């Protein structure tokens, strides 16, 4: 893998809220010299057909991500707590919907 970025503008990840009431969703990335340019570029690249009402841009290097290799152990604490799911509890039919 190469991290050569000698002449490149920094990479920004782009998140778009398609309409109010919905979450922002990752749509891709782009290069820009600063945050302001990243926003206007994101508008031009990712919302040419009114796909969004709000845009977030985040420098890719600022994102901290979990790694897939330790998926097992990382999520383990939740794996043995089946009682967190409603289906863990059996109710008689007479109780009806709960």
């Amino acid at each position: 893998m190469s991290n050569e970025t000698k002449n490149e503008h920094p990479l920004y990840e782009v998140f778009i809220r398609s309409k109010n009431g919905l979450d922002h969703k990752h749509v891709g990335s782009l290069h820009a010299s600063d945050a302001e340019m990243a926003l206007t570029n994101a508008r031009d690249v990712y919302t040419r057909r009114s796909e969004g009402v709000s845009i977030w841009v985040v420098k890719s290097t600022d994102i901290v991500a979990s790694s897939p290799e330790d998926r097992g152990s990382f999520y383990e604490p939740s794996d043995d707590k089946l009682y967190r799911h409603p289906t863990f509890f059996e109710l008689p039919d007479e109780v009806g919907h709960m």
Partner: protein
Amino acid sequence: MDVIEQELEELETAFQAKVDAEQRIEPKDWMPAKYRQTLIRQMSQHAHSEVVGMLPEGNWLTRAPSLKRKAILMAKIQDEGGHGLYLYSATETLGTSRDEMFEQLHSGKAKYSSIFNYPTLSWADIGAIGWVVDGAAIVNQIALCRCSYGPYARAMIRICKEESFHQRQGYEIMMTMAQGTKEQREMAQDALNRWWWPTLMMFGPNDANSANSAQSMKWKIKRQSNDDLRQKFIDATVPQAEFLKLTIPDDKLAWNDERGHYDFGEIDWDEFKSVVKGNGLCNRERLQARIEAHDGGKWVRDAALAYAAKQKTRNAKAA
């Protein structure tokens, strides 16, 4: 077998199982080095094709027959630039950089779709490109929406949504010309005559001669074979041409009841190979235009960086 080799084999088996189970591969997941390389090559060349694809159409921007057509063509070309960006961005998730990809394009090491090495001689070419070239691209790209690599598949979905406008605007240009004066009909026919065969070549060599196909199919990078996709495109396009009362330039083209498909003539593979090698009508011109655009934009990129640095220092002082 040593431990490392055994470990690698286990990883590869797990990877293939994941692909077979229709699970998507995401950037940080383990993947075979060859899978990564294949994707970087295919995706970056796809991105380059979108970007170089702006050039033949740009030729007609200043000579579009009306302001409406000009605005539409501009929007289409802007889309192609956007598609290039989606794809570069998706390719970067595999660990290559934008600069590296540009370098490979500009040095001629990376290819782009040969179709863009043909010239656009008349306004009808813009119609033909939208209708058949983008039509063929859509057939290819719909198959790629289910590619095993998540970022590529997602980029393709976005692209397919937009590509449909491109094909319809092209068909509408052809329809207008096909219903126009005798000269206009001839222009439309001439454009179809020149673009038809190169368009069929866009699907790549016949399955029997396609070196990388089998592995790509196994990895579900590719979902359908070159020949299947080509057939699909022909079957869809022949009735569209009939409606326009234009003739597809292939005297072997005929409906085959038994197969339930159109039969068609043999593609001139020597021409295909020659254009891929760099001997098409416009190879040098396209690459030159691309390099000049990149180099010519350097001062803008430098100025933007200098401005960003200045703002940063200013804000730091003010704080």
